[in-house]
């Protein structure tokens, strides 16, 4: 029977299946960070259990870490305790750990691919919803809760039920200035934040084939914002070239074996999907979110919606609540929205390619006087690479703050937060109420759109600049 890529990965990891479909799935790789793991390690200790495969587990601190000077450690006491707790847990249980001063430290979903930890055909989990990022490599990767983190640590398996298959194809070419971020925001706007619930999405079509690995990661990263368990892209030569030579990539004879295995990871021609969506690349525009859900999207040439035109009562209520929170009037043109802050970074858009694109836009220009702008590289290695290319100088000359790596203002667990009513053009993934700081107003955009907004002090059509 013809199978999808998801079916193939699922079946090759199935340890056991009960009559009601409850399955035991083998987990190849486990990423761990400081926020969702302390209670899991505590659970192991209380029940006298060990970590089954410490070598398949990699830990890093990212959520709590300051992005300013780190020489004096972490000022916030609770954050410091959480970071120290992970360090101790890793030592006690024999897990490799990238600490605060390690140059490899960074956002968990940036460092996995960077180290070659992430590979095609694997099952990868992490106590973080944006684990879907790793699907860009043709790995089945998804976020789990802390109880499940403990379960994987103890057993290297997870109790799961099989998801359905959802094909999203974007064909043709994207207009200049339209990015992977605009593609995924458009998809979420199209199917809604619950549109992918119960599914694993496979991204197909020319647009994804043409995407770099970084762009594929941006798309897969936000699969969770569409409610999907995971996102997948078929691994190809670009995938293999990206992995080759990375510290944890297969070497020598194993490289050949792996390449052979990876080359068979694709959806069969006649495989059936439970749901399909076809979009055209040429129809996608630079996109800005206006509300408090990633599905609240508008084109850069669009307007904030008018709740009075909404017939569905539930939706009308949501729009009213969002507009009130966001401090926006109905029918405001997106290009008339002024911003106070710009955040460039996160597991969605904090990779070297994102920083290069931003640098191209801001080179020789100045950040608007009314705007505070920061660039937070996704990892220490991204930071080093950017500095090697002189990108840091371009950012600093333009008036951006150049920071240390971490999750930063994507969720504001560290001091990088919005103040109430501050409005931010953000390259991150969530615009929920309070996400970047209580009362803070987040507009999700691509790195180039955020860069242009930093210069102009408001949203502008990037297509008119490049």
């Amino acid at each position, binding site marked *: 029977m013809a199978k999808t890529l998801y079916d193939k990965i699922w079946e090759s990891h199935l*340890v*056991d299946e009960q009559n*009601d*479909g*409850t399955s*035991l799935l*083998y987990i190849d790789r486990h990423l761990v960070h400081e*926020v*969702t793991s*302390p*209670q899991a390690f505590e*659970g192991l200790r209380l*029940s006298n259990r060990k970590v089954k495969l410490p*070598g*398949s587990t990699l830990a890093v601190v990212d*959520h*709590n870490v300051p992005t300013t000077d780190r020489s004096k450690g972490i000022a*916030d006491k609770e954050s410091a305790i959480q970071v120290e*707790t992970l360090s101790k847990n890793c030592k006690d249980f024999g897990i490799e750990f990238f600490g605060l001063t390690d140059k490899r430290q960074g956002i968990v979903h940036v460092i996995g691919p960077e180290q070659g930890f992430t*590979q095609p055909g*694997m099952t990868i989990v992490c106590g*973080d*919803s944006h684990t879907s990022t790793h699907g860009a490599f043709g790995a089945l990767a*998804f*976020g*789990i*809760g*802390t*109880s*499940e983190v*403990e379960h994987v640590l*103890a*057993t*290297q*398996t997870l*109790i799961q*039920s099989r998801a359905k298959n959802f094909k999203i194809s974007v064909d043709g070419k994207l207009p200049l200035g339209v990015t992977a971020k605009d593609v995924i925001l458009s998809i979420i706007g199209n199917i809604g*934040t*619950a549109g992918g*619930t119960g599914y694993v999405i496979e991204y197909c079509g020319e647009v994804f084939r043409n995407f770099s690995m970084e762009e594929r990661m941006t798309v897969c990263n936000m699969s969770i914002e569409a*409610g999907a*368990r995971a996102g997948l892209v078929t691994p190809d030569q670009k995938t293999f070239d990206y992995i080759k030579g990375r510290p944890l990539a297969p070497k020598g004879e*194993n490289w050949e*074996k*792996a390449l052979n*295995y990876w080359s068979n990871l694709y959806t069969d021609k006649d495989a059936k999907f439970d749901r399909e969506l076809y979009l055209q690349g040429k129809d996608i525009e630079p996109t800005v979110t206006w509300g408090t*859900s990633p599905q609240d999207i508008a084109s850069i040439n669009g307007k904030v919606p008018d709740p009075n035109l909404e017939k569905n009562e*539930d939706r009308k*209520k*949501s729009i009213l*609540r969002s507009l009130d929170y966001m401090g926006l009037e109905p029918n405001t043109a997106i290009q008339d929205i002024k911003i106070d802050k710009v955040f460039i970074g996160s597991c969605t858009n904090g990779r070297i390619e994102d920083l290069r694109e931003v640098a191209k836009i801001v080179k020789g220009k100045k950040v608007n006087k009314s705007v505070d702008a920061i660039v937070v590289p996704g990892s220490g290695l991204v930071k080093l690479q950017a500095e090697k290319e002189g990108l840091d100088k371009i950012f600093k000359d333009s008036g951006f703050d150049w920071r240390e790596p971490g999750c930063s203002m994507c*969720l*504001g*667990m560290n001091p990088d937060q919005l103040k*109430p009513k501050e409005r931010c053009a953000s390259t991150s993934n*969530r615009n*929920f*109420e*309070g996400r970047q700081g*209580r009362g803070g107003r987040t507009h999700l955009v691509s790195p180039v759109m955020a860069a242009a907004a930093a210069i102009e002090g408001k949203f502008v059509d990037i297509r008119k600049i490049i």
Partner: protein
Amino acid sequence: MEKFTKLKSIAADLQISNIDTDMIIPKQFLKTIKRTGLGSALFYEMRYDEKGNVIKNFILNNTPFNKAKILISGKNFGCGSSREHAPWALLDFGIRCIIAESFADIFYNNCFKNGILPIILPENQVKELSEAARKNKEIEIDLIDQKIHKGDNRPFDFEIESFRKECLLNGYDDIALTLKKDAKIESFEQRKKNLTPWLY
């Protein structure tokens, strides 16, 4: 994990769609290294103003709903992050059952690991329960028979996967159950070591 068999309580009705995990428990409370004591942080920014004063018209701040063990909400409840702090906060507040039209995947899963029963019902039934809740009527959840009694003779049926039901009814520890399959896991791993040796 505490067993779940039957639950009788008034219900708090929070009819907002897409309640996300940042709403359920904001980031500043994720710095804990414990599972307990998060009830006071539940829906923090909806329950307290910027100065920490109680927001009076929020349902969970009002008697008798501050004692509700059942929460009724809109579509896509629990969307967003994987933070298990969300169900921990609900549980610590006293909520053992959430009824909604749909749930986000990771949150739904996390509930079962903590003895919380999430129930999916069609829109018209959620509406009916929400009206009953607003009239302070008690609702009884019977997991054994998979029925919701609301004081008339027309109980609603609900679906639940049989394994999840067993775990809730008995308060099973997932890990202990999986470890019983240790031999299967080991033989699977051996096969995998031959097939994909570069992973080991």
